[in-house]
């Protein structure tokens, strides 16, 4: 037993020392992986735990995630309980002290933005609600900017040897992002005030940014799949209170929005929601370029 343990710890020590070279980052969602790439460049090695076609609320603590979390120097997640169904068990079983929630190696993006839709009453009868507020913060580029500032700071803390490199990349990114945001604001001006129907309450930050007005959801309650009775109600509501489009994320099933779009005679828009959610959403810039273009096409 003792020999076995010594052998194990030797392997572990070798693996550990080989690892100090590049910063291993475990990104819970593709948008944080993309941001990490902007800030960390070739000094970081990034693993993305989920993809744009997975419902971020319904991820399983599969073995590959445990193996990756065990080697991570930094875990970057949304927080606000978006990952509550799988991340706690992954971190607890990772045997990796550095990325536990109270450590610098654990970063929750939602802590650095002002959250919307913070519930005043916590009751599961209201569906899948997040006590900390709506966690889908990545749909507003201003939030990306805020998270970038905090994440750059965190990188310099846990990898001070490359601090200058990270800060240089951060300044470069921040400047390009600022310019891009001005462009998006200008381009998206026709969207201001447009009424929309959404599949899931996943677009609060997008609406807040672009001045869209959410009039209905296809889900009867957050996290509950659309029912025909509820869809009929939404259709009825749209007769009195018309909307410009029905919006869903890449991971949502298309049937409910197709049903409504056909009957209400409004376009169904699928937005990438995160990096990788469409062909054009290859990085964060592409994500917002494509999102704005798709929304604009619907109001034209």
């Amino acid at each position, binding site marked *: *037993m003792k020999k076995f*343990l*010594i052998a*194990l*710890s030797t392997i*572990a020590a070798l*693996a*550990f020392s080989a690892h*100090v070279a590049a910063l291993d980052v475990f990104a819970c969602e593709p948008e944080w992986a993309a941001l990490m790439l902007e800030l960390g460049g070739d000094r970081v090695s990034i693993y993305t735990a*989920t*993809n744009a*076609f997975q*419902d971020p609320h*319904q991820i*399983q*603590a*599969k*073995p*590959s995630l*445990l*193996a*990756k979390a*065990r*080697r991570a120097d930094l875990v970057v997640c949304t927080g606000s*309980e978006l990952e*509550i*169904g799988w991340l*706690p*068990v992954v971190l*607890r*079983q990772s*045997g*990796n*002290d550095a990325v*536990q929630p*109270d450590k610098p190696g654990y970063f929750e993006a939602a*802590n*650095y*933005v*002002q959250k919307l839709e*913070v519930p005043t009453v916590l009751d*599961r009868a209201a*569906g899948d609600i997040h*006590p*900390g507020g709506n966690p889908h913060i990545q749909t507003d580029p201003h939030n990306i900017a805020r998270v970038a500032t*905090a994440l*750059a*700071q965190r990188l*310099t803390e*846990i990898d*001070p040897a490359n*601090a*200058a490199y990270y*800060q240089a990349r*951060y300044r470069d990114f921040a400047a390009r992002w600022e310019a891009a945001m001005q462009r998006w604001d200008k381009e998206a001006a026709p969207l201001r005030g447009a009424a929309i129907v959404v599949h899931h309450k996943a677009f609060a930050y997008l609406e807040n940014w672009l001045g869209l007005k959410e009039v209905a959801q296809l889900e009867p309650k957050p*996290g*509950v*799949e659309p029912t025909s009775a509820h869809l009929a109600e939404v259709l009825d509501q749209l007769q009195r209170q018309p909307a410009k489009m029905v919006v869903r994320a890449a*991971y949502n*099933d298309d049937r409910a929005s197709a049903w409504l779009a056909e009957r209400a005679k409004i376009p169904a828009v699928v937005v990438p929601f995160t990096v990788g959610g469409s062909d054009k959403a290859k990085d964060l810039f592409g994500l917002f370029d494509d999102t704005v273009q798709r929304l604009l096409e619907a109001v034209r």
Partner: protein
Amino acid sequence: MFRHLLCMAAAAAVAGSSLAAEPAATDTDQRLQNVEQRLERLENAAPSAVPPASAGSFNPAVSLILSGIYTDLSHDPADYRITGFPVPSAAEIGPGRRGFSLAESELGVYANIDPYFYGGLNYSLHPDDTASVEEAFIQTIALSNGFAVKAGRFFSGIGYLNSQHSHVWDFADAPLVYQAFLGTQFGDDAVQIKWLAPTDTFLEIGAELGRGRAYPGSDRDGNGVGAGTLFAHLGGDAGVSNSWRAGLSLLNTSPQDREFSVTDLAGNDATNSFSGHSHTWVADAVWKYAPNGNPVYTNFKLQAEYMRRHEDGDVTYDSDGALGLTNTAPFDAKQSGWYVQGVYQFMPYWRIGLRSDRLDHGTVDYGANDANLPLYGYNPSRNSVMADYTPSEFSRIRLQLSQDKARRGVTDRELFLQYQMSLGAHGAHAY
């Protein structure tokens, strides 16, 4: 062993802190300051985004599992047995009581104790108004290099289903191999050490040393160790849509006077006991498929486990002397069994599943007691089909039908209609 671990933890800590303490260049300081100023501006601009904290935030996560069942059986469960696989009366096997019944309901309280330990209690409420401690353990969260240590009462890490609570199983009852070889589930008062390898492929190795109080062990009064396990699990992804895990485990126990009752060759109910060594090998595999890794609309799960047990020692026939025929003789048995099950979610909230169970009577040698104790040469089997409806992560309603041939010469047709709901903290489930 512990000293060794502590040394390693200390070494890792030192390595970590020396990195962090490295002096940064003045240039960097300046940039850091800039960033800090930006942060400050940001914080002043936006009201505090941190959720309000109160003393209540320190409360542990409390969850309550509520479960009830309606059971309809074509044969009396009072004489339920798995022919050729006698278990102690304390082991809860079989389909349970007929009619409406409370099923196993559980109260769980879990929390981080401090920066170093996590702990929890799972208290199980049984339909006969008794309660038991299902799990009560502490585990480390601050060790590095992939190590974790757990101590207390907990379900062993062997196999796949064993460490899961019954409310996350996909069928209303445990596979026959689990009932016959582990008395439904093997939980012990023990210490566990697990190590996760620093590899891209998931590789976990674990060992446990414990009291061995539960079947196939037996509670005893003595120093030292009554049960030991070793297990290894390997897992990974195959593309974005497939994930898998496979493992091999060994459970060793040394039961003393482990009782079992059988009808002897003369037709009497005889109480007997076994003392010796019990070795159980478990091979497990699970494969999950979800299109693009998104299980919300459709998904499929296939799992199978095989167990092989070797027991040798002495069997005392009529150990309580009720028949006046008490006799001790050498015993040696090699038996095995398996189950395979598939569960398919064909639309949101709805799943169907099939399970096939089989045990192989193997070779059983009672020595001189062959004259008293029967050898059946019978292979118990069971087939089950289930359908369940899961309107949310917190509730599930299930219908299960089984054709149970655990008893020789009896085909029990079983129907289960059950609900399983959880309220309280949103638990994260293991794979």
